[in-house]
C-alpha cells in the first residue's frame, strides 16, 4: 500500500513557504549547467517555468505540439489574473485570497498549497509587469483592478479581454530570451507519447515529430509536465480543439496518481451550442458579469425577442437567489442556476438552452464607450460568431465544459508519485479544490512556473548532481519506443468506417449527459457502460487515414481520443465514488432543500487519488485526508 506523503512543511501557515525555501537543498550554479530538465507544454505554466529554470542555469528542453510556444491555450484566458496587492484599499490580503480560494473550492483543496499560491501572486504580477505585460492602467499610471466571481474585493488585473494572451506573451518572451542565452532549447510540433522511467525515476520522454512522424528519444534528470487540462474530453468545450490529456495520461499509466478526476468546471457563460457541426464553444469572459445582468423570462416558453420582454417580466434569477453576490456568484453556482432555469422551461433561443446576459442597464448608466473600452473585443467576438450585436440585444449564454480542477496528484513540491516527475499549472490537481474561482488559473500557472517549481525542483536535483547525462540507448527507451510505435500501428490498422471525430463527439455527449453539470448514481453507471461500449467500437471501426511517417492530423487526434476513453472511465468512477455534492461535482442525491450542493465532510473530506493497476483492472483509490487548521469549514453560502 502506497502512503501519500504531501510533504507539507511544519510551522504556521504563513511561514511554511519561507521555511521550506530556507531549508531546501540547493544546487550550485556550476552544477545546474550539468543538469537537464525536460519540460512539456508551453502555456503560461510551461513558458514561465522554462524562463525561470533557464535563468537559473539549467539545461531545459521544452516541447509543445503547436507550431510555436506562444499558441498554447492560456492565450485564450480573457478576464484577468488575481493578486493580493490590495491596491484598491478594499481589505484584501494574502489570507483573504487564500480564504476565498479555499471556500470557492468548496473545502476540497490543501490549505498549504493554496496559501502559497496566494502568497506568490504579488511577485507574479510584478514579474509580468516588468516583462512588459501591458496591464490596464488608471490615469495616474498605476495598475487598475476589477472584481470577479465569488469574491467581494477587486483584485483582478487585466489587459482588456486578452489577459491570458498578454500574460503568455510575457512568459513566451522570457522563454525566448533563454533560447537566446542558450539555456532553453525549443522543440515545437512535437507530441509527448511516453514517459521514461529508469530505476523508479522519471528520466525522459518519447515524442513524435508531428511533421516527419519520426519517433524521438529525449532524456533528462527530471521531467516537468505543464500540459494543461482535459476539458476537451467533452468534445465541445471552451478549450482549443487540440488540447488533450495524453501526456498526463501516459504518466498516469506509468505510475503517477491522478487526483479528483471528476472535478471539472462547467463555465456558466459560453456562447450556446448552435448546431451539430460545431467544433467548439467560445467562452464569454466571467468579467462580463461585472456589468452584465443574467436573466430568463418569467413566463415559461416565452419566445419573444429579448428586447420585447418588459422589465417586470424578466427574472434576474441570480440576483433573486443570491442577493449578496448577485451576478458574481462562483462559476459552479452560476452554471447550475442556468441549467435549472432551462430545464424548467424558461430557457431562450431556438433550443431553449440559453439565458440572457444583458448590458442594457450598464450601457445606459456608463455609456457605450465605457463598456466598449472594458469588453470591446469580447463583444466583437460574440458578434462575429452569432451575427448578433450585443450592444443592442442581450448576449445568449449557456454553460460549457471549461477547466479541470482534477489532474495529476502532486505533493507540496509539485512532484507526482513518480520521483523526478513534476506537474504544474492546470495539469496538476493542486489548488482549486472542487471549483476554481475566476482569474485564479493564470495566477496559479504563473506562480507555479515563475516561483514554485524553480525552487522545489532544486531540492530534488540536489541529489542528482552526480548523475551523468542520461543515455537514450537503453532498454527503457527501447521498450517505450516500441510501445509507442505499436499503438500507432494499431490505430492505423483498424481501417474501419467511422472518423475519429465522430467517436469523440459521441464520447463527449455521453459524458455531458451522465457526468456533466449534475450527476446521479444511475446515470454514472449507465455512462460507464456506454463509454466502454463506445471504446470497443472505436478499436473495431475507427478509420485513420494516411501513414505514420508524415504529418497526419487524424492520427494525432486518434491517439488523443483513444486516451480520452480511458480517462472518461476514471472520471465516472471517481464521480460514482464521491456520493456528495461539492463544487462542480453535483450529485443529485446530495442537495439542500433549496437545491444547493450539500457536502458530506464526515465521509468525503479527502482528495480521491487514483492509482492505475493495469489494463482492464479497476484503479485503486487512495485518500489524502484534508485537514483544515486555519479556516473554519462551513456551508458555502453566496446568498
Amino acid at each position, binding site marked *: 500500500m502506497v502512503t501519500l506523503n504531501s510533504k507539507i512543511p511544519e510551522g504556521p501557515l504563513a511561514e511554511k513557504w519561507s521555511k521550506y525555501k530556507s531549508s531546501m537543498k540547493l544546487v550550485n550554479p556550476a552544477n545546474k549547467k550539468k543538469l537537464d530538465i525536460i519540460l512539456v507544454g508551453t502555456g503560461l505554466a510551461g513558458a514561465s517555468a522554462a524562463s525561470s529554470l533557464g535563468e537559473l542555469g539549467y539545461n531545459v528542453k521544452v516541447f509543445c505540439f503547436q*507550431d510555436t510556444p506562444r499558441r498554447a491555450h492560456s492565450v485564450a484566458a480573457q478576464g484577468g489574473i488575481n493578486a493580493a496587492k490590495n491596491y484598491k484599499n478594499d481589505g484584501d490580503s494574502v489570507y483573504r485570497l487564500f480564504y476565498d480560494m479555499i471556500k470557492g473550492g468548496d473545502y476540497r483543496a490543501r490549505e498549504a498549497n493554496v496559501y502559497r499560491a496566494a502568497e506568490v501572486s504579488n511577485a507574479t504580477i510584478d514579474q509580468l509587469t516588468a516583462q512588459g505585460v501591458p496591464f490596464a492602467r488608471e490615469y495616474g499610471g498605476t495598475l487598475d483592478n476589477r472584481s470577479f466571481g465569488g469574491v467581494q474585493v477587486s483584485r483582478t488585473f487585466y489587459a482588456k479581454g486578452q489577459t491570458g494572451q498578454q500574460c503568455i506573451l510575457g512568459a513566451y518572451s522570457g522563454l525566448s530570451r533563454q533560447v537566446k542565452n542558450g539555456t532553453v532549447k525549443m522543440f515545437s510540433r512535437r507530441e509527448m507519447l511516453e514517459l521514461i522511467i529508469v530505476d523508479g525515476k522519471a528520466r525522459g520522454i518519447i515524442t513524435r515529430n508531428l511533421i516527419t512522424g519520426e519517433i524521438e528519444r529525449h532524456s533528462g534528470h527530471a521531467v516537468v509536465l505543464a500540459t494543461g487540462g482535459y476539458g476537451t474530453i467533452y468534445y465541445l468545450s471552451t478549450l482549443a480543439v487540440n488540447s488533450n490529456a495524453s501526456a498526463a495520461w501516459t504518466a498516469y499509466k506509468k505510475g503517477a496518481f491522478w487526483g479528483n478526476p471528476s472535478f471539472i468546471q462547467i463555465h456558466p457563460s459560453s456562447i450556446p451550442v448552435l448546431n451539430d*457541426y460545431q467544433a467548439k464553444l467560445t467562452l464569454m469572459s466571467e468579467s462580463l458579469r461585472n456589468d452584465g445582468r443574467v436573466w430568463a423570462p418569467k413566463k415559461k416558453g416565452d419566445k419573444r425577442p429579448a428586447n420585447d420582454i418588459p422589465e417586470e417580466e424578466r427574472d434576474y434569477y441570480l440576483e433573486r437567489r443570491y442577493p449578496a453576490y448577485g451576478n458574481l456568484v462562483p462559476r459552479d453556482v452560476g452554471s447550475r442556476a442556468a441549467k435549472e432555469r432551462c430545464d424548467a422551461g424558461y430557457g431562450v433561443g431556438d433550443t431553449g438552452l440559453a439565458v440572457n446576459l444583458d448590458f442594457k442597464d450598464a450601457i445606459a448608466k456608463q455609456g457605450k464607450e465605457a463598456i466598449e473600452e472594458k469588453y470591446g473585443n469580447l463583444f466583437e467576438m460574440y458578434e462575429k460568431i452569432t451575427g448578433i450585436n450585443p450592444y443592442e440585444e442581450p448576449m445568449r449564454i449557456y454553460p460549457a465544459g471549461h477547466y479541470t480542477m482534477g489532474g495529476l496528484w502532486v505533493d507540496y513540491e509539485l512532484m507526482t508519485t513518480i520521483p523526478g516527475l513534476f506537474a504544474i499549472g492546470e495539469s496538476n490537481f493542486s489548488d482549486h479544490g472542487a471549483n476554481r474561482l475566476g482569474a485564479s488559473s493564470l495566477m496559479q500557472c504563473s506562480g507555479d512556473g515563475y516561483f514554485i517549481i524553480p525552487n522545489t525542483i532544486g531540492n530534488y536535483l540536489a541529489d542528482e548532481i552526480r548523475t551523468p547525462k542520461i543515455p537514450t540507448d537503453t532498454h527503457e527507451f527501447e521498450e517505450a519506443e516500441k510501445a509507442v510505435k505499436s499503438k500507432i500501428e494499431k490505430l492505423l490498422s483498424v481501417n474501419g468506417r467511422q472518423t475519429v471525430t465522430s467517436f469523440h463527439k459521441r464520447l463527449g455527449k455521453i459524458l455531458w449527459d451522465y457526468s456533466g453539470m449534475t450527476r446521479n448514481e444511475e446515470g454514472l453507471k449507465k455512462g460507464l457502460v456506454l463509454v466502454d461500449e463506445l471504446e470497443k467500437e472505436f478499436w473495431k471501426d475507427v478509420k485513420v487515414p494516411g501513414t505514420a511517417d508524415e504529418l497526419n492530423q487524424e492520427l494525432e487526434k486518434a491517439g488523443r481520443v483513444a486516451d480520452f476513453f480511458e480517462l472518461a472511465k476514471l472520471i465516472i468512477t471517481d464521480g460514482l465514488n464521491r456520493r456528495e455534492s461539492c463544487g462542480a461535482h453535483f450529485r443529485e442525491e446530495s442537495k439542500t432543500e433549496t437545491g444547493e450542493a450539500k457536502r458530506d465532510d464526515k465521509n468525503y473530506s479527502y482528495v480521491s487519488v487514483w492509482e492505475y493497476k493495469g489494463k482492464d483492472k479497476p484503479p485503486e483509490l487512495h485518500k489524502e485526508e484534508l485537514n483544515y487548521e486555519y479556516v473554519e469549514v462551513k456551508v458555502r453560502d453566496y446568498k
Partner: protein
Amino acid sequence: MNIKLKIWRQKNAKAKGKFEDYTLDDVSPEMSFLEMLDALNTKLIEEGGDPVAYDHDCREGICGCCSLYINGNPHGPGEKTTTCELHMRSFKDGQTLIVEPWRAKSFPVIKDLIVDRNAFDKIIVAGGFISVDAGSAPDSNSILAKKENADEAINSASCIGCGACVAACKNASAMLFVSAKISQLALLPQGKVEAMDRVNAMVARMDELGFGNCTNTYACEAECPKGIKITNIARMNREFFAAKVVG
C-alpha cells in the same frame, strides 16, 4: 449552400503542389469556414481519400494558428477576422473558393495549407523581450505608465503572430509584426532601457531571415485580423534611426 473549392494540395515541403477541385453540398451559412473544411475532411476520409491538412487550434481568433489565403485575401474577406472566425454566411451559394497557404519565402510550406512560421520565433528570440529575471522585479506600481501609452501598448500587443501581414505584402515584409512588438515595449517605461539594442537586433534578424522591405501599400494593416496599425512601423523606423544615430 453548395460550395466549390479549389484547394492547394502538397504532400510535403519537397513535393510539388497543385490545386485540387472539390464540391461540398449542404453547407450551412452558420458554419464557420473551418467547420466547412472539417465537413470536407469527414467526406474525404469516409470516401477513402486524404484529408486536407491545415493549422487551427483555439477557433476563437486568439491563438494565431489558423491562416489560409481565401480568394486572394489572408483570412478571407471581412475586416479584422481570422479564418476560424469567418462564417460561411460571408459567401454565396454556388461560389467558388480558392484556398491557398501563406505564400512567402520565409514561410515554407510543410504540407497542404500548413506553413512553417518559425521565423517569427527567431525574430523574438533576437530581442523581443525585456531582460528581467524572476525575483528581481520591482513592485508593479513603482513603474508608472501613462494610461494612453499603456492603452496603445495593448493595441500593439494584440498581435497574434499569425503572419497575415507577411502573406498580404508583395515583398513578404514582416515589418508590421516586428514593429508591433517593438512598439509595445518602447511605449512602456520598463521596455525603454533596452529599446535601442532591441530594435537593432530584431531588424537585423528580420533581414537575415529573408523578409522583404515595407512597400508602403498598407496591405498588412488592411489584412491584419487584429487591427494592428501601420503607425507601428513608423514608430519602429523612428526607434531604428534613433538607435543608429546614437550608434
